[in-house]
């Protein structure tokens, strides 16, 4: 635990160094594509003196000066499956983005979709000796949360305090300076597989890049595609990626739950590939051009050329109707959404005051998906696109980039995590010194 605390702190320091230098890269390692954005922090709000998120959700302090996307190789289910291939893909994306930005990037913030995230809700409680909540008290109460046994080979990715309560008053965002006797906190802990993270870190290290932050893709997709009200009132963001579908639940502007379903758009492609007996690339192409989930009478008459790839172009010309294609795709999409439904139910999403569901990610572009999703997930479903960020190329504004855009916001404005506060060492000397000073003040 101490190691992780130190490692995360080191990453935070690295992020500070990158902000000082003004250039930082964003790396979204997905199963279908790897996106790299280069940010330059030189906006007008970079040196704000006040706290809090600035105008335009704090994103006016940076702009995107380089963006590149490459096909992902060697990543499956959002996890690194082939190290060499992944490294090459990261290198391609980073180099292209650097070339566009015409600047060298040394620090990178990455996100990963898979690695079996698991959420825990913790709470801690301390008695305040001074009567006023100080920063050290917050560190103390965060350290007082008793860790669940999250298992061997797991790693803490996020540990965010989501709520503070002082005596019987709950729902405090920032209790510092308030008077009370008992400080209680709720913390959301997200753990991931150690091996998956380690592999990704190794790939990034092999590219001569320093890691300045690591985030869950479901979390950052939620940051970018949920609007402020949804984050406040409670909403779920479903990031339908290539190999994994991440879901995160937000409430009161904090992520309170995250999970991932190990199925995504690649599985749909794979179904088409097997069902229609066409190459993977053709299947992907057919899916993106003609895919859908709701068949109509018109679709029976629309024939799609799928080719035979046998060399005999004259005779061997196969076609399928679009209805057939939809018939292949729909069960898989339904399966994914059912799985998501199960996860949401397990998380107790029904009990939230607002049950908004936002679909984003590359998979959310299937026509008719919102109709299907509203049947399975509930009535309040919408398709989400990421926030608009200054300097982002038009090609990178689609829902497939919501994780990448969310990472830029995360880079500009990371949420307070447990390791942002000083770990409370029970320092006897300091305390005795304070006592001595107090004695002098009282007696002289």
């Amino acid at each position, binding site marked *: 635990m101490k190691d992780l605390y130190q490692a995360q702190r080191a990453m935070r320091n690295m992020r500070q160094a990158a902000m000082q230098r003004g250039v930082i890269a964003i790396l979204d390692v997905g199963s279908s594509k790897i996106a790299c954005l280069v940010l330059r922090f030189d906006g007008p709000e970079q040196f704000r003196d006040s706290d809090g998120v600035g105008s335009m959700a704090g994103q006016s302090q940076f702009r995107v000066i380089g963006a590149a996307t490459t096909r992902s190789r060697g990543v499956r289910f959002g996890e690194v499956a082939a190290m060499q291939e992944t490294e090459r893909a990261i290198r*391609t994306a980073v180099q292209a983005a650097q070339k566009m930005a015409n600047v060298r990037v040394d620090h990178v913030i990455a996100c990963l979709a898979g690695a079996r995230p698991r959420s825990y809700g913790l709470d801690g409680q301390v008695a305040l000796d001074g009567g006023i909540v100080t920063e050290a008290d917050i560190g103390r109460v965060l350290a007082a949360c008793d860790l669940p046994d999250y298992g061997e080979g797991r790693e803490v990715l996020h540990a965010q305090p989501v709520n503070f309560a002082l005596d019987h008053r709950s729902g405090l965002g920032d209790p510092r300076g308030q008077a009370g006797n008992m400080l209680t906190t709720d913390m959301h802990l997200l753990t991931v597989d150690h091996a998956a993270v380690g592999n990704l870190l190794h790939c990034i290290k092999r590219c001569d890049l320093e890691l300045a932050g690591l985030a869950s893709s479901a979390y950052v997709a939620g940051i970018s595609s949920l609007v402020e009200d949804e984050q406040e009132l409670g909403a779920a963001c479903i990031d339908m990626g290539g190999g994994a579908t991440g879901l995160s639940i937000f409430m009161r502007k904090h992520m309170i739950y995250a999970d991932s379903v190990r199925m995504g758009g690649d599985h749909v492609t794979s179904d088409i590939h097997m069902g229609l007996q066409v190459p993977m690339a053709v299947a992907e192409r057919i899916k993106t051009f003609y895919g859908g989930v709701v068949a109509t009478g018109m679709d029976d008459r629309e024939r799609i050329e799928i080719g035979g790839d046998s060399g005999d172009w004259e005779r061997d010309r196969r076609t399928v109707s679009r209805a057939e294609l939809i018939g292949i795709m729909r069960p898989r999409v339904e399966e994914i959404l059912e799985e998501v439904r199960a996860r949401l139910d397990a998380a107790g999403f029904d009990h939230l005051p607002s049950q908004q569901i936002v679909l984003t990610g590359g998979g959310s572009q299937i026509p008719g998906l919102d109709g299907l999703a509203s049947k399975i997930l509930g009535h309040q479903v919408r398709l989400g696109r990421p926030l608009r960020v200054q300097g982002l190329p038009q090609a990178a504004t689609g829902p497939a980039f919501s994780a990448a855009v969310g990472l830029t916001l995360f880079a500009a404005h990371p949420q307070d995590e447990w390791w942002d506060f000083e770990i409370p060492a029970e320092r006897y000397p300091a305390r005795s010194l304070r006592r001595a000073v107090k004695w002098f003040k009282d007696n002289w």
Partner: protein
Amino acid sequence: MQPLKRDPAPSRWHYRYQRLMLTPAFRKLLRVGLPLALVAGVAGGWLARADNRALVTESWQNLVWELQHRDEFMVDAMAIDGADDALSADIRDVLPVDFPVSSFELDLVEMRDTVAAIPAVAEAVLRVKPGGILQVTITQRQPVAVFRTASGLRLIDAEGVIIGPLAARADRADLPLVTGDGARDELAEGLALYDVAGPILPRMRAVMRMGERRWDVVLDRGQRILLPTENPIEAFERVIALSEAKDLLDRDVSVVDMRNAARPTIRLNEPAVAELRRISGPAEEPDE
């Protein structure tokens, strides 16, 4: 599933090379440092040979020599203004310049100091005039008095500086004679005595500084006028006035002592004393 076609990806070294080329410091080094190093290396390699270094120094010296010995910079003659013939000869002796010579090789400051070191020269101005003439303009010291010392006669100028020896007093009979220790320092006062002498000027032989504090005026027939330290001119004028009125100095007086202004004293010669005794003797015998 078909094997994936390998997508183009930069090799590890190409990736590193690209990153290196995007490093600003490295680019600057490449753009500025590399050419500099190249030029310095080639030049250094060439200069490493002693022959080449000698060639460089030799050709440089040749170039300098040729430039300095162009006709425009040559000095052919020396012209001396403001000095008489003897002094001109002296100057030509102390400035041994072999004409023609380049003006770059003339050290005018040192030459001026050399010329100014001659006693008869008050001030010297040297310049190279267009046309290759070394112009030496001299302000000569003018003798105003003859100064007698134990080792002989000297000519001195108004500032008391010794210009040169004088063989005989008769050579410069027009100049007043000054003598005594410290006389050169108070020369102006000594010469002022000559100015006010008026009728007794022909009889004046010298003014003499006594004990570095006051003047004696020495006349012919061994007469002396002892002047006080303060206001010697006025005292001298009194003596002259007395002499005009009473023919004091024509009488048989050896010393007129004006050192005490309240009590001028005269000393008579032996015969005059005897004569005085003889004249006044019967009239008033001493009482004892």
